[in-house]
Structure formats: structure tokens, C-alpha cells
């Protein structure tokens, strides 16, 4: 009886060990596989972070080139934008080195947070730069419209001295000057409105301010087009009056 009992016990023990062996073997192979997957995921995340940093650095480079190439941007506005962009460029470059040496997900997460929330290259710096460039360019367009109106006014004055009735031409030139001033009043304040915006202002109030700025730029452009069309009508009328087909 004792032998039988011992045999059964031995069999049960053997069965239990046999049943447990495959599970034990599986666990031993899964541990390295999981670690490998985690390591692989970490490297993938690192690559994404580095690409995201590179995209921002490329964008900064382009914006700086646009500022440098602009013939119309106000020097103080250019200096303001360039300083902000250069600061971000330096800090993002440092983050690249940090990302390459990071060893934990937490470190990469912190890098992403800093990259996005402390610089806002796409949501703020890019449209901000374009709005300032556009505003200052728009001011220069007003200068050119004024110069064109003066050129036409001078021609009209000569025709008047020659005895022609140019009152309608002069009225059109006045209308064009009024439209130019309306456009300038919309376009000029844009740079001043968006320049002070910082990453902490995103999304509010930066979003609303920049939307309004863009809307003003579009309205200013429409006023400029109106001024240009009016000047063209004035030139055509003057040409008609003096019998010239030059215009």
C-alpha cells in the first residue's frame, strides 16, 4: 500500500512537472523578446523625435532665409524675428544631442514636450514670420501706389496746364489715394500685433490675433487692388482726354 501510494505520488509529481515544463520554457523565451521589442520601440521613438527636431530646424533655416532675403522688412522687425528664431535654433540643436543620448522613454517625452510647447515653430513662429514679412511688404506696396498716383497727378497737371479739363482724372486719383490709405491702415498694424506673441500664447490668444491679422491683410490687399484699378481708369481717361493711346 505504501509503495502504491508512493508510486501515485511520483506519477502525479511527474505529470505536474511535465505540464509545467512547456510553460517554463515559454516564459524563458518571452522575456528577451519583450525586452527586444521595447528596445526596438525606443529606438523608433528616438528616430521620430530626431526627425521632428530636424523638421523644425529646417523650417527655422527657411524662415531666416526669407527674412534675410526680404528687401522690405523693417530692420527692427527683422531683428526681433531673427533673435527668436536663433534662440529656438540653439535650443533645438541642443535637444538633438540630448535625444541621441537619451536612455529612457521619460527623457524622450520631456524632449518632445520642450520641442513643441516651448518653441511652437509651426503653430506660431512660421505664421508670425510670414505675417510680419507680409505686413512690411504691404507697406511698401502703399508707397508704390502713392508714387504711381503722384506720377499720374503730375501728368494730369501738365494736361491741365495745356488747357485740358482733367477734373475727372483728378477725382479718380483722389479716390485711389483714399483706397491706398485704407489699405495701409489695415496692413501696417499687423506686424506690431503679431510680433509680441510667444509660445505660451498658443493657442490663446495667439490664434485669434493671427486670424484677425490675416483677415486685415486680405482686406488691405483688396483696398490696394481697388486703388490700382482706379489709377488705371484714371490713366485711361487721361489718355482719352489728351488723345493718346499710351495708357
Amino acid at each position, binding site marked *: 500500500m505504501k509503495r502504491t501510494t508512493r508510486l501515485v505520488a511520483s506519477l502525479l509529481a511527474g505529470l505536474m512537472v511535465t505540464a509545467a515544463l512547456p510553460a517554463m520554457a515559454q516564459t524563458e523565451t518571452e522575456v528577451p523578446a519583450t525586452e527586444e521589442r521595447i528596445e526596438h520601440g525606443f529606438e523608433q521613438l528616438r528616430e521620430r523625435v530626431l526627425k521632428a527636431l530636424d523638421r523644425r530646424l529646417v523650417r527655422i533655416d527657411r524662415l531666416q532665409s526669407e527674412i534675410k532675403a526680404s528687401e522690405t522688412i523693417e530692420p527692427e522687425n527683422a531683428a526681433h524675428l531673427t533673435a527668436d528664431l536663433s534662440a529656438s535654433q540653439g535650443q533645438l540643436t541642443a535637444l538633438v544631442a540630448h535625444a541621441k543620448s537619451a536612455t529612457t522613454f521619460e527623457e524622450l517625452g520631456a524632449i518632445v514636450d520642450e520641442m513643441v510647447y516651448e518653441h511652437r515653430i509651426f503653430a506660431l513662429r512660421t505664421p508670425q514670420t510670414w505675417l510680419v514679412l507680409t505686413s512690411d*511688404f504691404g507697406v511698401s506696396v502703399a*508707397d508704390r501706389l502713392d*508714387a*504711381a498716383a503722384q506720377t499720374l497727378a503730375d501728368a494730369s497737371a501738365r494736361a491741365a496746364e*495745356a488747357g485740358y479739363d482733367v477734373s475727372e482724372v483728378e477725382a479718380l486719383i483722389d479716390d485711389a489715394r483714399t483706397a491706398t490709405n485704407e489699405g495701409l491702415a489695415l496692413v501696417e498694424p499687423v506686424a506690431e500685433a503679431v510680433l509680441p506673441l510667444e509660445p505660451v500664447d498658443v493657442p490663446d490668444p495667439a490664434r485669434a490675433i493671427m486670424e484677425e491679422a*490675416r483677415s486685415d491683410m486680405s482686406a488691405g490687399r483688396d483696398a490696394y487692388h481697388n486703388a490700382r484699378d482706379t489709377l488705371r481708369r484714371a*490713366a485711361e481717361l487721361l489718355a482719352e482726354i489728351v488723345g*493718346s493711346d499710351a495708357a
Partner: protein
Amino acid sequence: MTSKGLVFALVSAMVLGACGGIARPDSRAIRPEPTVAESPATSSGGTQAPAIDPSPTSTAVARPVQAEPEPAESSPGTPSATVTSDGPPSTTTSTGESIDLAEVRDVLDALDALLGGLDSHIDSVDLEEGETP
């Protein structure tokens, strides 16, 4: 009108038709005038506003001179059609200053290009671009 005057007036009218200028009936045209830029040059627009004054400049181009009907046959107060042409200086005593509207057209064409540039600038403002890594 003498036959000489008639021929002169006819030639003037033909040249006028070809060039399209008008004259101011004053007596300034027979002497060289310094060219004065009529629009301030700005450093911003990329194009310079052309001066409308076609009076002689410092370049080597022959100075335009005025050909017009004999003064005695021009009625006072009536615009006299005068054109510019190249040639030796005239001894005409009463001449005019032409108005070259082609210059005005050039200024307006330059404005078209500037406004196109402004359109491109405004189109570059994209507020929808996200900050997603």
C-alpha cells in the same frame, strides 16, 4: 496760313499721330531741363517708379525737340498738339513739354507685379499647420 506753315502743321500732325504726345504751350522746351525724379525711390518695392518727365537727361540720347505749328497760327488758350522727336535743336520760340503716358502705364504694370507678390505673401500664411511631432 502760308504754304510753308500748312506743310509744317501737316507734318506735325502726322508725327503726333505716330507718337501720341501733347504739348504744354509754354516757352520752356527749347532749353535743356534737368530731369527730376517725380517719385521718391524706395528701397522696398523692387522696382523703381519711372519718371514721367521726358525732358532731356544726362544720357547720350539726343535731346527731344519740339515741332509745332507756327506760333502765330495757334489760337491762345487752345491746347497745341506737340510731339517729341529726335533731331537738331529747334529754334522755335514757343514750345511745349510732352506728356508721356507710356510711363504711367509702366508704373501701373509694375504695380500689378507688386500686388501679385503681396498675394503670394498672404497665401503663405498658414494658420492650420499643426505642431504634431
